[in-house]
């Protein structure tokens, strides 16, 4: 080895092309940081200028004294006012008092509950005005602060001068005219006159309140005393001088208590009216402020593109095979978009997930061993005359409460910077709390977080020890990058450490989408999850937020992990997934459930599977137990719909001119004596019990006896049809002809059923929203 060789080798290290997503994410995070930094900088500007000066304050959290508070109204100004006030003591005194008396709302001093609430309101308004002053976490910029303070200083000065003149002109005993303060110089300046009165109010009330209960009588004495003093004028000059000094000084220094009030929750307002009103202006301000620091992505939601299933000719392709899908994320994502007044992108609409979002009252199997009982119905197709819809419904066996297996859960929570948004991490924490409530005391829960580097936040802990789990959950904060892969590894290790063959071992991943750090290749991660699935640890995915949702990866992960992918857009959805349907989310009763339908060419000419585009299986996959498919949780209803064109109906695909379908001739002969002439199709369902590796088969023919008219169709069938219709219209309505949103609404209204939880009514609202969103888009 020589020098040149070393140099060559080092020179030739070729780094891979950076991942586009990682880059976007990094740039975004950096920009958020940049903005934050700029803001901080603007707030913490140091300087010699009077108003830019920082003073120290002790920080309760860190127990340190830091130079971060700005003394808005500096010592110089105080001194000036003091000097003025001292020299003009007599007039100043009267002026101040009059001002106070005039500006104070009279009823505030008459006592009684109502008046106290009105005081509190006053304080509240004045406080929200105060909070515009200085302090950290403020929007207001230095420039404004300065000019406001200057205006204020001028106002005080001017009022003093005027009062002096007036006092000289009219004598000490006459009533001075109210101080005229320059208004309109600045928008904030308008608040000035009111301010003086309120500050006094606040201080008086605060002092009144120091005796535990509000005592209206005490403030009442004050004005009386003042007018008396005014009357006695000269006699009291000496004493009053002192008082005026304090009043003026207080006025001048009023900014200081305010900044304090900002740093700690408003002491005055809390003390004033216990139980009457809880004023919260500072919190509102904080929200506004934080809103700008939230991480927000736009338009980078990733969905797998799928084309609608095309109609197929029975004579050419009589068998249709697919894997079931119990996810619901598409529906909640769509709901979120519609609620924001936007039509969801077409790829975000997966019809089967919308249909399966709802619970259906299909008959349930009686035993755990044969967990399904298929329900079939045939109804006229509402969007194409002559066509029929075959409706296949299965509902998983629901475990009775006593039979719930134990759960060994690991929450894998994304706490990266992008989760810093009200609809992300806080919602994740809330959701996890909800889930805790639906667990049994013996179940164990562990928490792994990942942000920058993955870490175990909570070792496996029994749910009995709820306080501990809650305290960990509540202390989670978002920040840093996303090391997803490492997090998943740790989560699986934890789950393995408490692995119990009899219980449900599951990792529940809560994230907003892409793992930008740590995975070179999503396929690598998928195969990792698949390997773990084979050891018996399943993965469920709860996704949050929008703008950068990597739906595709989440779907893939959940599918490979034998779990459910749900999208949580609000607390209600969290409740639905984690409490109401906790059993189906947590406990699988069958895995690798596949459906195969063979159509009878004697009765059906064409068929089209509605939805399940991404779940297509090959015909030969059906009997192959190695092929993975969807899983069904306890009590979960799954629905599939086929649109069929009966023989003789209006077909979309013409017969070939040159190739006579092989089956037809044989068919023609056997048609009359066909034993299956009453059958539309033959349904086969394959499934495995959760702990078995060989599949079982359920079969049932779909016959003309399943035919229903539009009137006799059950609510569940009708409802599924309405939802499927809506999904298709949202996806562009390629095969639904003239079917409109209004038709969906009518159909849905007719089959709403009991609708105990209001999900179905919500759906109808969504259709209306979609209708108006579509109308807006057209214009």
């Amino acid at each position: 080895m020589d020098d040149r060789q070393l140099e060559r080798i080092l020179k030739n290290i070729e780094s891979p092309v950076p991942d586009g997503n990682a880059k976007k994410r990094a740039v975004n995070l950096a920009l958020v940081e940049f903005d934050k930094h700029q803001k901080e900088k603007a707030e913490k500007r140091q300087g010699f200028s009077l108003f830019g000066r920082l003073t120290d304050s002790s920080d309760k959290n860190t127990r340190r004294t830091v130079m971060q508070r700005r003394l808005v109204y500096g010592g110089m100004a105080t001194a000036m006012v003091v000097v003025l006030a001292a020299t003009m003591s007599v007039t100043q005194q009267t002026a101040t008092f009059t001002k106070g008396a005039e500006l104070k709302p009279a009823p505030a001093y008459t006592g009684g509950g109502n008046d106290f609430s009105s005081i509190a309101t006053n304080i509240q308004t004045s406080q929200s005005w105060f909070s515009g002053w200085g302090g950290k976490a403020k929007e207001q910029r230095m420039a404004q602060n300065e000019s406001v303070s200057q205006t204020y200083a001028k106002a005080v000065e001017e009022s003093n001068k005027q009062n002096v003149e007036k006092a000289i002109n009219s004598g000490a005993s006459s009533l001075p005219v109210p101080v005229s303060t320059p208004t309109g110089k600045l928008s904030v300046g308008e608040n000035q006159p009111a301010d003086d009165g309120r500050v006094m109010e606040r201080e008086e009330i605060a002092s009144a309140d120091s005796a535990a209960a509000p005592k209206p009588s005490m403030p009442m004495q004050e004005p009386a005393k003042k007018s008396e003093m005014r009357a006695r004028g000269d006699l009291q000059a000496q004493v009053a001088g002192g008082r005026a000094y304090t009043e003026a000084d207080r006025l001048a220094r009023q900014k200081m208590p305010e900044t304090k009030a900002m740093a700690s929750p408003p002491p005055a307002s809390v003390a004033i009216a216990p139980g009457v009103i809880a004023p919260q202006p500072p919190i509102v301000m904080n929200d506004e402020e934080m809103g700008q620091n939230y991480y927000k992505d736009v338009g980078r939601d990733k969905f797998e593109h799928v084309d609608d299933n095309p109609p197929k000719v029975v004579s050419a392709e009589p068998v249709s095979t697919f894997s079931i899908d119990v996810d619901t994320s598409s529906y909640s994502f769509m709901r979120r978009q519609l609620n924001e007044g936007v039509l969801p992108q077409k790829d975000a609409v997966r019809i089967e997930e919308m249909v399966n979002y709802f619970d259906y009252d299909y008959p349930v199997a009686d035993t755990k061993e044969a967990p399904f009982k298929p329900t079939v119905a045939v109804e006229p197709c509402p969007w194409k005359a002559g066509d029929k819809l075959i409706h296949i419904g299965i509902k998983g066996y629901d475990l009775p409460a006593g039979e719930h297996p134990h759960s060994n859960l690991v929450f894998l929570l994304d706490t990266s910077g992008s989760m810093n948004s009200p609809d992300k991490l806080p919602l994740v924490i809330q959701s996890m709390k909800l889930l805790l409530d639906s667990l049994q005391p013996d179940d164990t829960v562990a928490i792994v977080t990942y942000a920058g580097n993955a870490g175990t936040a909570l070792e496996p802990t029994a749910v009995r020890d709820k306080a501990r789990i809650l305290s960990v959950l509540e202390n989670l904060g978002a920040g840093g990058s996303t090391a997803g892969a490492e997090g998943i590894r740790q989560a699986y290790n934890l789950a393995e450490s408490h692995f119990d063959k009899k219980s449900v071992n599951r990792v529940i991943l809560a994230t907003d989408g892409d793992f930008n750090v740590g995975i070179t290749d999503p396929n690598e991660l998928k195969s990792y999850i698949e390997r773990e699935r084979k050891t018996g640890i399943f993965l469920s995915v709860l996704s949050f937020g929008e703008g950068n949702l990597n739906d595709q990866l989440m779907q893939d992960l959940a599918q490979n992990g034998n779990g459910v992918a749900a999208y949580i857009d609000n607390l209600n959805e969290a409740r639905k997934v984690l409490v109401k349907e906790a059993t189906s989310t947590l406990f699988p009763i069958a895995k690798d459930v596949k459906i195969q339908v063979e159509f009878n060419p004697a009765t059906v000419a064409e068929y089209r599977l509605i939805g399940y585009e991404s779940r297509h299986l090959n015909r030969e996959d059906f009997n192959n137990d190695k092929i993975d498919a969807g899983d069904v949780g306890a009590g979960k209803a799954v629905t599939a719909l086929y649109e069929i064109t009966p023989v003789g109906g209006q077909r979309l695909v013409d017969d070939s001119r040159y190739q006579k379908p092989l089956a037809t001739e044989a068919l023609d002969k056997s048609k009359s004596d066909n034993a299956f002439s009453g059958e539309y199709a033959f349904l086969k369902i394959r499934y495995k019990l959760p702990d078995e590796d060989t599949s079982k088969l359920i079969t049932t023919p779909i016959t003309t006896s399943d035919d229903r008219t539009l009137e006799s169709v059950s609510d569940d069938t009708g409802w599924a049809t309405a939802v499927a219709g809506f999904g298709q219209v949202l996806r562009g309505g390629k095969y639904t002809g003239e079917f409109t949103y209004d038709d969906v609404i009518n159909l849905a209204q007719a089959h709403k059923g009991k609708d105990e939880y209001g999900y179905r009514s919500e759906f109808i609202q969504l259709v209306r929203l979609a209708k108006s969103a579509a109308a807006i888009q057209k214009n």
Partner: protein
Amino acid sequence: MAEDITAMIRAAQAGDGRAFESLLQEHYEIIFRMAFKWCGNRADAEDITQNACIKLARNIETYKFEAAFTSWLYRLVINTAIDWKRQNKTHIALPEHADDTISTGDSSAEDKLQAREMLAQVMALPEKEKTALLLVFSEGLTHAEAAFAMGCKESTVSWYVHEARKKLGVKDDGKKKERRHG
């Protein structure tokens, strides 16, 4: 180009978010490349790069144009990487598919193997020596530039490179490229 970058930096320092973004877009690859060479695998490199970007957001204004921006950037990346390593304390592995990442051009499999072994040794070097070696040989910086990036004296860089060489068992082949300074 150089003026563009300078203007961008000045704007970013003045608080222009858009300028900062384009600056970042422009330099992401450089940061990533350095991070990758330093830690040897993509996952960690992306992590370090992200941290470096965030750090850059806070520190862009401390750049005083006293050296080339890229040198300054190297310094930031190296510091980030060192911080990151301290935090993670994870084993820094060679890229799993080293063959894909080390391009040895037309050379034989044997050469590749040798190169890989060599890199493993480089990765195992003490941090500073590794950094110096990468900056000088791989990124083609002069010792002076490397010194700036590493925040040490030029002679120290030379010494690091020398030490690294010694440890790797590299013999001087007479045609010494390295210039002696100080």
